[in-house]
């Protein structure tokens, strides 16, 4: 069964550094998402992406965040200048976007630790 994959599984970075988190969504899916989960808190929506552009973003997704689908398979989340509070689990998800399919398929997550 096809799965969403994410790399790396764990990323440690210093405050102020740029990080890129990578995701490979399921190949025929059309909608892509990033979520994050700070330890002990709920999963929070960051951004959705469709047709090569952002379709919706939350207030968390400020100017230090960006997303890209550079080559038709990878879907990346870039954090320009990381802060301590960016430490979290970051989940990528995708769905097929068909009329009756609301199931999002999640990746295993990337644990980002900012020191």
């Amino acid at each position, binding site marked *: 069964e096809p799965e*969403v994959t994410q790399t790396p599984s764990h990323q440690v970075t210093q405050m102020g550094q740029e990080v890129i988190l990578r995701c490979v969504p399921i190949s025929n899916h059309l*909608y892509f*998402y990033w*979520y994050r989960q700070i330890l002990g*808190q*709920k*999963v*929070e*929506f960051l951004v*959705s992406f*469709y047709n090569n552009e952002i*379709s*919706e973003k*939350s207030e968390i997704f400020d100017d230090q965040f960006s997303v890209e689908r550079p080559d038709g398979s990878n879907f990346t989340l870039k954090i320009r200048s990381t802060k301590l509070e960016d430490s979290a689990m970051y*989940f990528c*998800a995708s*769905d097929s*976007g068909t*009329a*009756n399919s*609301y*199931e*999002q*398929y*999640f*990746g*295993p*997550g990337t644990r980002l630790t900012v020191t």
Partner: protein
Amino acid sequence: AQRVTQPEKLLSVFKGAPVELKCNYSYSGSPELFWYVQYSRQRLQLLLRHISRESIKGFTADLNKGETSFHLKKPFAQEEDSAMYYCALSGRAGANNLFFGTGTRLTVIP
């Protein structure tokens, strides 16, 4: 604004006992409601959604618009049901951004 509330962080039941995981929501329109589950060392996965009205692994959930609730129920809990359960809401079709509750960790005691 949308909000999903799961009042219980932890819930323990004995094997064979009924289980109910509570979820309440607030949303100004007509939301789609879901239950996602995360078993130990596995990824988040969809358990069920209100529009399909199905029973998955013995679990059911009924959307009660009057009480704005979407409680998850199972008449006889099994050990393999032990997991983290998240109630989630999506406001509209298309970009189905999910808004999650804080989750309930269910432990089924053998």
